[in-house]
């Protein structure tokens, strides 16, 4: 198991700003380091620099700052899973503006194109609380509707789920440009699960169906059984960026956070989405 025939799993991670990618990355690294998860490091040391700032903040019981927008860093984590399978994980950290640029700019630069085409699995991080559907005539009917004048008001805001479907369509298109490559498996990670204040046992598929039915239908159609919807609370609690959470400091960030499995069960092993993506990609 020493570096020969390792399964290399390159993960392409997508998510807009404020949806919790960096907190997840930092917590993931802490879990792997302290061996509180299925994945264990094969090498004695890895480059921790990408998450150094985030981890310092979390260890002080504070929210981390926004990832600088120009940055993109691939982190290579040589790990072994519970079945003894050696995996080389490539996990990126970057600012969500780069995803926004793809969606709103409708272009993808060469680096993103290569990542999208070369990845063994895609992970899309979505914060359901930011994707709430607006009220419309069906959810909140009026006795009678007025007539809109063409001149009135700005362009309507595009719904989050429509943006995400568009992003996935772009990724599918980009992938298809290269030798009709098969689509990689997809993990939809519903982040900041704790802020939804849901009863225990609520399943991630129930949440996506309720918050983003268009996205839910689309991924079912396109990925069929190669998509998995999971919940994630990287921190387990809501932290402030000013007032430290003493409990978080005393117990250590590596003891906070959980993943919600498809059956609704919470599990403190934050590497579950990675293991699942690796399972689906072979």
């Amino acid at each position, binding site marked *: 198991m020493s570096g020969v025939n390792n399964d290399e799993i390159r993960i392409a991670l997508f998510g807009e700003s404020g949806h919790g990618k960096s907190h997840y990355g930092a917590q993931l690294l802490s879990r792997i380091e302290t061996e509180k998860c299925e994945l264990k490091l094969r090498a004695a040391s890895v480059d921790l620099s990408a998450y150094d700032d985030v981890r310092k903040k979390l260890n002080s019981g504070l929210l981390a700052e926004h990832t600088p927008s120009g940055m993109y860093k691939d982190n290579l984590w040589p790990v072994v899973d519970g079945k003894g399978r050696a995996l080389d994980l490539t996990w990126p950290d970057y600012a969500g503006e780069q995803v926004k640029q793809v969606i709103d700019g*409708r*272009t*993808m*630069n*060469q680096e993103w*194109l290569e990542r999208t085409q070369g990845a063994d699995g895609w992970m899309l991080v979505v914060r359901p609380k930011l994707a709430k*559907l*607006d*009220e*419309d*005539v*069906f*959810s*909140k*009917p*009026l006795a009678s*509707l*007025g*007539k*809109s*004048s*063409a001149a*009135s*008001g700005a*362009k*309507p*805001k*595009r*719904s989050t*789920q*429509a943006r995400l*479907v*568009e992003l996935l*369509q*772009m990724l599918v*298109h*980009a992938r298809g*440009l290269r030798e009709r490559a098969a689509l990689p498996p997809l993990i939809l990670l519903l982040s900041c699960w704790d802020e939804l204040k849901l009863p225990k046992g609520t399943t991630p598929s129930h949440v996506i*169906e*309720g918050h983003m*039915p*268009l996205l*839910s*239908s*689309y991924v*079912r*159609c*396109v990925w069929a059984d190669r998509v998995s919807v999971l919940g994630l609370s990287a921190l387990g609690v809501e932290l402030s960026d000013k007032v430290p959470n003493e409990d978080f400091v005393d117990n250590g960030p590596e003891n906070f956070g959980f993943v919600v499995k498809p059956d609704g069960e919470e599990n403190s092993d934050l590497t579950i989405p990675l293991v699942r993506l690796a399972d689906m990609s072979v």
Partner: protein
Amino acid sequence: MQGEEIEDCPAWKARVKSGPESETVVLTDGLTARDLRFPWTGNAMGPADLPYLTGARRVRLLTMAGASDAGKTSLLAAFYLLIARGYRPEGVEFAGSLTLEGWENIAGSLQWNTLNGPTFPAHTSSGGGRSPGMLHMTLRSTGRDCELLAADAPGEWFADWAVQRDNPRADGARWLCERTDVFLVIADSKALSGPDRGQARQALLDLLRRVGSERDGRPAALVWTKSDISVPSGIQAAIREGAARSLKDFREFSVSMHPEAGSESRNKGQGILELLAWVISAQPGNREALIPDNDGGALLHTFGSFA
């Protein structure tokens, strides 16, 4: 529908002659040649986009023929909003769209924002014979993809076309008619019960006759919009007789955005999903003339090969 050359479209020619409109594409950017630019914009499509779409897949073009303000754009917006809310026809899944921004734009006016409540979408302008805006959506049912392309065309086109087929102002309507796979003829319950109902009735009967003479076996339905408003029975009967005479075989639907009694908390409107299910599955009927039944009730039967 075959792949189309943009030059085929008379409406497009008129547009080119009249000079570019405001949505001219500007090539900005520090993009390098190797950057990927996506080949769809998300906005409503024009005739020039059709080759891209039809080159790859078989498209089902839906034309809604009806007067201005009859609720054509609202009906399209309702299709999208219901799907976006998770209400789909039985067994149907949303498999993507090349015009998500276009759908969101027409649906936006039916949404609540911080300043205003919902309004019906603004009038679709006829803007001097411009090309129709078309909205695309892929719907999958029983493992088959339906590439639905819905034309959001101004009512004036159809009014001119109904009266005189070769009217130059009806270029857009003729262009659509030649390529359409499914026709919806829109009966506006509000207009047919309002002060100008006599004229509305005449215009609709003319339109039914035109669609009847041009449809050539393609599926057609009579759709009563704003069906929460009741239309005088004499006018209803005249429209149904006219539809039977002109269309012969057709389906009839009544749609409204108001909830059915008892389902206010999960409002799907009325008749909208049933109509959408028919639109994506209707097949051309056999072209033998069917003898219309004078009993109005019989018109609600299903004719043709729809099953």
